[in-house]
């Protein structure tokens, strides 16, 4: 809760924009700049960092890329806390992933009251920038969905430092 009593919201894009479709989360954050009243942050999905980012927020929206078999690039999954916590196999090469972060957060009671995970199915996680066409389209859809969701229930920035030196928090009305 911020000092004026308005619920704090953070939108977190998880991923690496130099690993093709893994950049979907960061791309959604870019697409949201200037459109929502929330803290915007990008991180790599390492659980302790994720938990530290959403700590203190009343509401968090996390956007990440996922891999599915069979793949359907661009498909969007809207997951609640319990479902996200079951996704324990990370897409990235990190030792622990987003599912671990949610499960760990639940275990230590450090998960926002409202946590929503939007997962975009990717197809290409190779080296280099740029999203595949279906994933790029899904980024626009997800950004619109988040903007509409937050617009209906306007909130203020979380009021704490983002993980950037020069924070790009979006405070537009």
């Amino acid at each position, binding site marked *: 809760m911020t000092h004026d009593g308005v619920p704090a919201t953070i939108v977190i894009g998880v991923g690496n924009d*130099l690993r093709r479709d893994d950049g979907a989360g960061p791309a959604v954050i870019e697409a949201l700049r200037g459109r929502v009243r929330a803290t915007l942050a990008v991180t790599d999905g390492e659980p*302790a960092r994720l938990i530290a980012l959403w700590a203190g927020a009343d509401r968090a929206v996390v956007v990440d890329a996922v891999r599915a078999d069979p793949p359907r690039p661009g498909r969007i999954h809207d997951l609640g806390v319990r479902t996200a916590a079951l996704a324990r196999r990370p897409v990235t090469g*990190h030792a*622990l992933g987003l599912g671990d972060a949610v499960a*760990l957060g639940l*275990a*230590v009671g450090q998960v926002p009251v409202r946590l929503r995970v939007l997962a975009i199915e990717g197809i290409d996680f190779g080296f280099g920038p740029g999203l595949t066409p279906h994933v790029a389209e899904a980024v626009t859809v997800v950004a619109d969905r988040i903007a509409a969701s937050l617009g209906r229930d306007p909130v203020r920035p979380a009021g704490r430092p983002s993980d950037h*030196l020069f924070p790009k928090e979006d405070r537009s009305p």
Partner: protein
Amino acid sequence: MTHRNDRTLRVGALARVEGEGAMYVRVRGRNVEEVRLDIYEPPRFFEAFLRGRAHTEPPDITARICGICPVAYQMSACQAVEAACGVTVDGPLRDLRRLLYCGEWIESHALHVYLLHAPDFLGYPGAVELARDHRPVVERGLRLKKAGNTVMEVLGGRAIHPVNVRVGGFYRTPERTELVPLAETLRRARDDALATVEWAAGFEFPDFTHDHEYLALTAERYPLEAGTLRSTGGRAFTAADFEEHVTEHQVPHSTALHAHFTGGGRYLTGPLARYSLNRDRLSPLAREAADRAGLGPECRNPFRSILVRAVEIVYAVDEALRIIADYRPPPRPAVPVPPRRATGHGATEAPRGTLYHRYDLGPDGLIQAARIIPPTSQNQAAIEDDLRRFVADRLHLDDHDLTHRCEQAIRNYDPCISCSTHFLDLTVDRS
């Protein structure tokens, strides 16, 4: 099925290591015939990316090699470029670099101790299950990790791939007042760090020792951002002579080059080596913590590396507080580093061990050649040797148990396969 005289054990993907890869062990009778740490991720070609880039770019480009230890890459890169250009960065700027490096050690070690390594000693499959039964303990680990991240954010601009580091120093240096809240955070972290040592000292450690030659930097203080390379075998050389003393070679099962001392001989770098070669340079508080934990002058049991990492967290927190207390802002955030045609070398102590960089600069300051030798690739031969001996002494175990123990043995080294090249899968073959 287990065949006592002809066994194959396989694990598809090692859990709780950074990156992906595979391990293969083949046992025939009582002989462990083959042990391979298979690293099959394609090479990442960072040395090639660096060619033709300006001498100012390596700190930002090489930081992208790793999200866990980007500061190590930035520090080794800066040191190498500055050496090439004949510039020494000293005083408060050097202290700030050391402070930033302390942040990385705290967050990297806390991640490994609490979320990756401790579940092995307490019988849990992972950190989530550990947290369900030991919530206050994991909360302590997360607080420590966050303290390290905070140091990185204050000094580096952000916790992942810091943006405030440049050749010659920083883009911006903090005022003393900006470090006050950081000191408060670190004072609390010091208590958590001491409690971590006490907690880890209560674990049961397998009876296993190795005889690898240890290699680490040594300096006036416990080594972080600079120093002279020394080994337990009596070798001593500077970063500039690293490639004379260390030779890399390719093995068929790994896309990460192996390393050995020129003329033969595997070695080990990392916390065990650092501690064993620098114990007397720990702060009094960290040394007392090591004493209380039962760590002697040298640590030769890799399973006890969790204790050494815990002691190094105490040191990093203590050292960060010392630097903050003594800090006087420098007159300028960076010293000029005009390029010249030369070769420069840098070696610093990443959380996982010595990280070496070399850059050959042309007269225009553009990089003509680069060489990066990360700690995990240097340690591959020692890890394989540990596994060979570890398995040989435990052939009485069934395949499931032995495979599980092998995974633990690998986690002792906190391997960062993403650094050495990228990803790991484990196969133990007794057929």
